[in-house]
């Protein structure tokens, strides 16, 4: 077990190091932060002063190693835009993003799971067709289109809800809906196919043949077995809680981590981008671990297998 955890942690560290290196190379080779932040009309001496202040005039390999050295000491760098610690900038945006992504996750699970299960249990019926039509629509319409359509209807035409900003809870409704509808559609489709697969398994036929009531067979046999792929998808959704709303935050002018990421990339504000990437990687790793634990809980065979492996 210790080996398992250590190997997971080592893998996570390597993944994060690769992500940070990739971001460094892409961002630094594709643009000069001095020109990005100061603009193309900035006088040469202003650009030179900026580059010198941020060490951008050093050889790129030197910048890379000093950046990594700083990270190793827990220093994530400062924003080149205003000199504030990057971690501070990112942390202060997280509550805003979670204010959208957590309710959206609840909506995805709250709608997607029951809709998928219901559709599977009534396969081929009108409700199944309706649910799947809506799911395909929700799944295929890009979030920026869906967001703009919702604004057009509920803000411009009906005047019920604000079109953007973060002044009150009402401002969160449309972005949460935009995030939630797409995710619920994905989850409904996955849940339905997982359920259909399980419903066709021999153990279900056996259970029913033994006289187990339909609802009991579904609750005790079908749902736990169908939960494995569904939990994987939900785990992925949990992993995107921090930076999974980039487009929606832009469409709704919501000042969260996603907006910060867009601005930081546009300005090649390396420290901020990498800080966000580190957080995203950490969230992904944590959610994957959580999913692994849930697998063990949901599937007794995995628990037994783990014990057998331990012996």
């Amino acid at each position, binding site marked *: 077990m210790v080996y398992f955890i250590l190997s997971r942690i080592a893998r996570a560290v390597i993944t994060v190091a690769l992500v940070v290196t990739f971001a460094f190379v892409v961002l630094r080779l*594709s*643009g*000069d932060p001095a*020109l*990005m*932040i*100061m*603009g*193309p*009309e*900035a*006088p*040469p*001496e*202003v650009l*030179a*002063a*900026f580059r*010198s*202040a941020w060490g951008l005039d050093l050889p790129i390999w030197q910048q890379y190693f000093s950046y990594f050295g700083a990270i190793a000491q827990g220093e994530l760098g400062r*924003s080149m*835009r*205003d*000199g*504030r610690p990057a971690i501070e900038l990112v942390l202060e945006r997280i509550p805003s993003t979670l204010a959208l992504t957590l309710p959206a996750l609840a909506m995805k699970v709250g709608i997607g799971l029951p809709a998928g299960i219901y559709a599977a249990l009534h396969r081929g019926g009108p409700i199944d067709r309706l649910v799947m039509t809506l799911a395909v629509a929700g799944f295929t319409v890009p979030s920026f289109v869906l967001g*703009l359509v919702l*604004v*057009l209807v509920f*803000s*411009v035409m009906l*005047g019920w809800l*604000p*079109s*953007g*900003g*973060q002044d009150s809870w009402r401002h969160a409704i449309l972005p949460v809906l935009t995030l939630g509808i797409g995710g619920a559609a994905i989850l409904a489709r996955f849940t339905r196919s997982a359920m259909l697969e399980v419903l066709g398994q021999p153990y279900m036929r056996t259970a029913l043949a033994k006289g187990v009531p339909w609802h009991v067979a579904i609750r005790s046999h079908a749902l736990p077995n169908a939960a494995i792929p569904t939990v994987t998808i939900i785990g992925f959704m949990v992993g995107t809680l921090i930076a999974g709303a980039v487009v929606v935050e*832009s*469409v*709704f*002018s919501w*000042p969260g981590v996603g*907006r*910060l990421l*867009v*601005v930081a990339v546009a*300005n*090649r504000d390396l420290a901020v981008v990498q800080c966000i990437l580190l957080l995203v990687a950490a969230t992904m790793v944590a959610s994957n671990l959580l999913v692994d634990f849930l697998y063990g809980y949901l599937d007794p065979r995995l628990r037994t297998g783990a014990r057998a492996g331990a012996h």
Partner: protein
Amino acid sequence: MPLVSRRSALGLGLAAAGSLALPRFAIAQADNRPSITIAVQKVSNSNTLDVLREQSNVGERVFFSSIWEGLIGRDWLGGLKKVPLLATEWKRIDAQTVELKLRQGVKFHNGEEMTAEDVVFSFSRERMFAATEAKNRSTIKAFERIPTPRPGKELPPEVPAAARRAWPDLARVEAVDKYTVRFYNATPDLTLEGRLSRYGSDIMSRKGWEDAASYLDWARKPVTTGPYKIVDFKPDTYLVLEAHDEYWGGRPPLKRIRFVEVPEVPSRINGLLSGEYQFACDIPPDQIVGIEKNAAFEVQGGTILNHRLTVFDKNHAVLANPLVRRAFTHAIDRQAIVDSLWAGRTKVPKGLQWDYYDDMFVSDWDVPKYDPALAMDLLKQAGYKGDAIPYRLLNNYYTNQVPTAQILVEMWKAVGLNVEIQTKESWTQIMERNDSRGVRDWSNSAPFNDPVSSIVAQHGPNGQQQQIGEWTNVEANQMAEIMETSIDPAQRKKAFRRMLEICEREDPAYTVLHQNATFTAKQKSIKWKTAPAFAMDFRPGNFAL
């Protein structure tokens, strides 16, 4: 859509009810002025509100004329001429000294009166120049003491660099008395008054600086003299301004102005149409017709102090021949671009100059005329064989940049020029110096009303084009020097004309395509006039319902 929210209306109602019990107090508090919300693409690129740190179009919009004011201002609604602002009058002592009389009774946002001491401080090493020196410092011993900045009050290095760029030879500023200041330049300079009116030469409260805990704290809430004071600034999100009722120019017409960042164009337009925003800025020209279909809205705006250019690298094997570059300039039907992509709402200017240059404006100058036959003839004379010429292009950094590039390539193709677009990610890649650098896009501004602020600053020996090794010309550089140092207006104008001839005709460094423009959509019921600039003027007299 009401301009006052239900909450503020309720507040006003309660205030009115309270007036029965506390009439004097409540009457003093009553404020029926409207508040407005303006949707902008960006409030500040640098996350600060310091005029020397945030030198951008978006900065100009929120700074002028709401927050920052200089000694000499611009008539924003009247041709951008120089007008008295915090100084009521000024005179030349000699070719390198200007004396200004300060407006008396001007109050900063902190209630302090503006005096000569604040002006001197605004141009001090501590606030502006740090350890930089005037180019010709030896002529005058200036700024004897180089103060060590207090911890946290160190200027970002780009601030003194920008300040020195704006004031390359300023030796010192001296308080003659409480309301009189003198600016001493190390060299003779006829543009000192222009420099005083430029973006960045604005006045701040010394006490406001000293009271702030750090540079960043100050730069997010500078204490200035404008008609509106900063109440709340959340970088990348919003900026809230409130009326400065002690404003020297009268009571501001708005109670509050809220600039909100709405990065997407459709979101800005939707917010305007739904009544959440009273103004939506940065509207692309192709959206104007759609917005104005609704009779309740209109789009204002037009030309700004910025021209779009095509820039040449004369070191490129094909472009080394000036005849080829000249062919480029004559192959462009500029008016067609203005009509098709800008709905005719901007114009083709008279080269790299602006009307507000006054006496320095060369009125009989023009951009190279559209003459495909001449272009073809020039290519024939050059012996051009159809070799490919690279055109490095960014994806719509400028409004209409990609469609303009596509039109240009077709126009050039029509005269026989083989120009190949190379899409790039960043300015670094655009400017990278190698054999494949040929043609690129750029824009040039004129921060004050003299060609040294544009053609000399951008294409002269210290300008970006020469600094990155794209172009140089010995005679043009001599002309630039004359414009910078001569005190003979006629000689300066002659030098400017000659520099235009060289840079735009004989040995083209660039060619001007059109004047840039910015468009602001607004509720038609609001009586407000836009300036020919990014600046939005909400001073007394320019807002009514």
